């Protein structure tokens, strides 16, 4: 409704505004909506990028946390806001895709314009400190003999999907249990209240420090940061799934605004100080520009879709 009203009020000026914008976007502060609470991985990425991007564009960029309903509230707000380049969003793909296909959301994949991706963080499975299993093989053979006995904790839209795909591909039944956040999940794992945790590689250090065991990462190849942790692939399990923090705008940006943003993003993508911040935060940096990110997302969507469809009743019913 706001958008409509502001459109009506500004309609007479739109023509001139369009021309004026070409030279001087941005002319005021920009806000980046993050659909999670402050302090998590997505929030960290947003803050690192906002800092540097703001310098590049010569305007302050404010990070606004808009959490709720597993990211749905914030993503919905990004999709609904005016496509003028002054409201952007940062979140972990594929949260939007999973939400869209498991719930009745008002946004779709195409409601957003994907401008860049900054990292590539695989999901992984970790075993609790007391667990008798330290390899995938042991774990799977136990799981197949004792269906549904092993308990895997998960949090977030992708956490559950990853846990379900992990069980499905390795032909065993495990019982997923939901936690509201990464901290709570780690606490349950380290206290041996659950057997396994399905979470991203970012949790590696605290879990290993307290004697938990990484079983594997759902990555194409071993991560530079954690060369000792095997991938599922090399252990014979075909599962690649990860989070990628993307910077988006609502669909329908004016061409010149989009151009200005994309140029600025490409410009900062090689900034060493920014990359160092990513490394410090244990976030594996991988920059994709606007055309590369769309290619990556399309491919990833086609991989995820069958997994979601196969597990839809489990996602909704349990």
């Amino acid at each position, binding site marked *: *409704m*706001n958008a409509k009203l*502001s459109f009506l009020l500004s309609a007479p000026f739109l023509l001139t505004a369009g021309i004026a914008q070409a030279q001087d976007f941005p002319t005021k502060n920009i*806000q980046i909506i993050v659909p999670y609470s402050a302090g998590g991985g997505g929030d960290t990425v947003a803050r690192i990028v906002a800092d540097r991007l703001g310098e590049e564009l010569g305007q*302050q960029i*404010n990070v606004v946390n808009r959490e709720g309903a597993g990211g749905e509230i914030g993503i919905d707000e990004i999709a609904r806001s005016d496509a003028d380049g002054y409201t952007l969003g940062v979140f972990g793909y594929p949260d939007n895709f999973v939400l869209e296909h498991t719930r009745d959301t008002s946004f779709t994949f195409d409601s957003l314009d994907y401008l860049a991706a900054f990292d590539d963080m695989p999901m992984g499975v970790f075993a609790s400190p007391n667990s008798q299993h330290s390899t995938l093989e042991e774990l799977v053979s136990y799981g197949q003999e004792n269906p549904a006995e092993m308990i895997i904790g998960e949090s977030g839209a992708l956490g559950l999907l990853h846990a379900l795909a992990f069980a499905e591909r390795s032909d065993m039944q495990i019982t997923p249990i939901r936690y509201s956040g990464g901290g709570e999940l780690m606490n349950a794992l380290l206290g041996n209240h659950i057997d396994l945790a399905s979470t991203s590689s970012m949790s590696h250090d605290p879990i290993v420090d307290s004697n938990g065991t990484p079983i594997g990462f759902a990555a194409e190849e071993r991560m530079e940061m954690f060369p000792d942790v095997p991938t599922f692939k090399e252990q014979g399990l075909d599962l690649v799934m990860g989070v990628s923090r993307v910077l988006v705008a609502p669909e329908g940006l004016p061409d010149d605004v989009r151009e200005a943003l994309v140029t600025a993003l490409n410009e900062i993508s090689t900034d060493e100080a920014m990359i160092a911040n990513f490394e410090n935060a244990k976030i594996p940096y991988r920059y994709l520009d606007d055309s590369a990110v769309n290619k990556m997302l399309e491919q990833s969507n086609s991989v995820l879709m069958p997994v979601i469809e196969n597990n839809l009743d489990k996602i909704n*019913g349990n």
Partner: protein
Amino acid sequence: MLSNLILGVVILLSSIFFYLQAIDLPERSALFPHFILWGMAIVGVLLIFQALLEVRKKVSQEGLVSRREARAQLNDILIFQVLVPGGLLLMAYGLLLSVGFYPASAFLVFTIYSYHAYRIDAANLNKSMWFRSIGFAIAVTLFMYLIFTLLLGLPAPSGALF
């Protein structure tokens, strides 16, 4: 007491309403709300009983008068100190949605300040009061703008205009 009777009835009816809402939910989701709503319904019934029992007790003439007074006072409070300011806040909320936080804030300060003065004494509503009211509304709004938007950079709820 009448208020307890009404409270009991409202609790009972709303727990039935929400119970019906929760009937289609998957079993594991419905368990906890059903449990709570059963509890609410029981509390509602007990409140009704308690109120009815009290009504049946014989009350002296004096008690009746004082009770009537208390009821009149309660009604007075409900209308003037709950519904009117609540309505003003809801109007401010509407303004907040349409024109943004700061105009809504000025409106709210202005109306509440004037209403407060009116409630103390209707004769207070003279010219100098209106000026004070406007001045105060502008001052508070400006102060909030300085602190929240300029100094702290907190996002304010924005409407179509601001």
